[in-house]
């Protein structure tokens, strides 16, 4: 294991993040803050409580999940795609770094960036919405797991993509719609059949409800299921990435 190599990649990725901090941090924070203003402060006060939780507090985990998924995925995919695009990937391929160092470096940095943004968003939310976290340690652990899972997923996306368009397709056309339809703004109990059943085929629904449980102590699905799904996604993504490195798919001719 080349620990210095992993640290170098990690540090370099964070440097890149802070170099573009204005866009990297301000944009997602501003977008999420607008959701809190509109749905939490402006409209939320006129919507009745859901499961004994104010509407403003109810949407905090969902919006946090929306940011986590999109930021983790795009940070990681962009992180590995850019060296492929510029040709700088030669350095990574010729260096004594393997799958472990690459994951710690690229995926670790992508997850760290998402966690920084998530922390800022949670603090920003306090300005507009009155919320508490019922299980803070579990919440932190779960947020870290989700950031890691979707950073791994983003890494795969960045290796798969052969253009900037493909890099955008999955977050914009799959993740964001699924997050909106996964109960960010409503409880599944508010849906009529068959949509209530259909919603349960949306994997993001379980992730949002897992995070909501750590915040409010109440959710539409058991917390164990949400944790299990997140861990399953991590295992699946690590397996795919190991296969990518073994075969050299899209990395080595």
């Amino acid at each position, binding site marked *: 294991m080349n620990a210095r190599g992993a640290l170098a990649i990690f540090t370099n990725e964070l440097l890149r993040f802070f170099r573009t901090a204005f866009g990297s941090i301000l944009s997602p924070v501003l977008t999420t803050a607008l959701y809190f203003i509109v749905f939490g402060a402006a409209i939320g006060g006129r919507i009745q409580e859901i499961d004994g939780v104010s509407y403003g507090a109810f949407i905090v985990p969902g919006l946090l999940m929306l940011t986590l998924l999109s930021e983790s995925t795009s940070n990681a995919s962009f992180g590995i795609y850019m060296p492929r695009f510029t040709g700088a990937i*030669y350095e*990574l391929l*010729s260096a004594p770094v393997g799958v472990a160092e690459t994951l710690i470096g690229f995926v670790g940095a992508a997850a760290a960036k998402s966690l920084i943004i998530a922390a800022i968003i949670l603090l920003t939310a306090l300005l507009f919405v009155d919320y508490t976290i019922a299980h803070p340690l579990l919440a932190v652990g779960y947020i870290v797991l989700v950031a890691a899972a979707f950073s791994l997923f983003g890494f795969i996306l960045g290796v798969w993509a052969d253009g900037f368009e493909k890099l955008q397709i999955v977050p914009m056309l799959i993740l964001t719609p699924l997050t909106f339809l996964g109960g960010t703004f409503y409880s599944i109990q508010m849906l009529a059949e068959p949509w209530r059943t259909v919603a349960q085929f949306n994997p993001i629904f379980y992730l949002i409800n897992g995070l909501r449980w750590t915040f409010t102590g109440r959710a539409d699905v058991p917390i164990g299921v949400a944790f299990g799904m997140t861990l399953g996604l991590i295992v699946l993504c690590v397996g795919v990435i190991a296969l990518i490195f073994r075969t050299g798919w899209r990395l080595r001719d």
Partner: protein
Amino acid sequence: MFPRVEGTILDIRGLAKTYKGGTTALAGVDLQIRKGEIFALLGPNGAGKTTLIGAVCGLLRPSGGTIEAFGLDARRHWREVRRRIGLVPQELSFDMFARVDHSVAYSRGMFGCAPDPARIEQVLRSLSLWDKRKAKIRELSGGMKRRVMIAKALSHDPDLLFLDEPTAGVDVELRRDMWRQIDALREAGTTIILTTHYIEEAQAMADRVGVINKGQLLLVDEKAAIMAQLGRTEARIALTPPLPGVPAALAGYPVTLENGGRTLFYRGGDGTGAGKREVAELVKALVGQGIGFEGIETRESSLEDIFVDLVENRVGAPA
């Protein structure tokens, strides 16, 4: 197959690479590189030079053959091997928005070396980049960018350095400056393998030269030995009056008539000066035969001539 030579730093045997589309870039290359030498790999575009480098450096997966570096199998001991190899690719490929010093320190870290600002400073100063250390790479000129590529490759003090077209697209002054830097690296004990389109570059710097074409090594030898073996002397003698044919007295010389019998063309010798002596004898024979002439032009063939002959005609010794 070559027997293993003492002091070999890189031992390539039967290296083959066929890409997915079916293109064979390397067709069983055998090559041994000696410790401390500068080896120039010459070949036309698409000859397999970059593929050979990529296979050794881990950028692509060979279809066959073995690569042993520093006495270690490059596939099994890839970490140890890669740690000691530096690569300057042909294309300018880096994060253009990164600072020069950050980019070089990043490369050093990726190769498992502890942070060493003094070493980074030394590398940057040696490449005249110290004053630009805080500049973003995109702000640098093309020549400066290429120096950054070299600085990145040197940051982890490699024992074996690959330079893929290191002076492509740089001006004459910078090219000569780079030659001096490469020479300094050799003095420091670094083994260097360079590919180049500039035969003059190989002629000026290399200890040994390899010529590759269509994935096959046509020739590998000491530069001086190649010149001696394949070098030729050429002489053009302006005749007055023109001759209708080569006189019988000159039949023993490698001569032909050109330009309507107005020029006697000699091409012979072996690159060690024998050709010049033969031209002198030829001139004496002309005088002896009473054949008039008004001028003589002679030239020794360059490495470039030999390279063109090899690639176009495939003459010369097998690798």
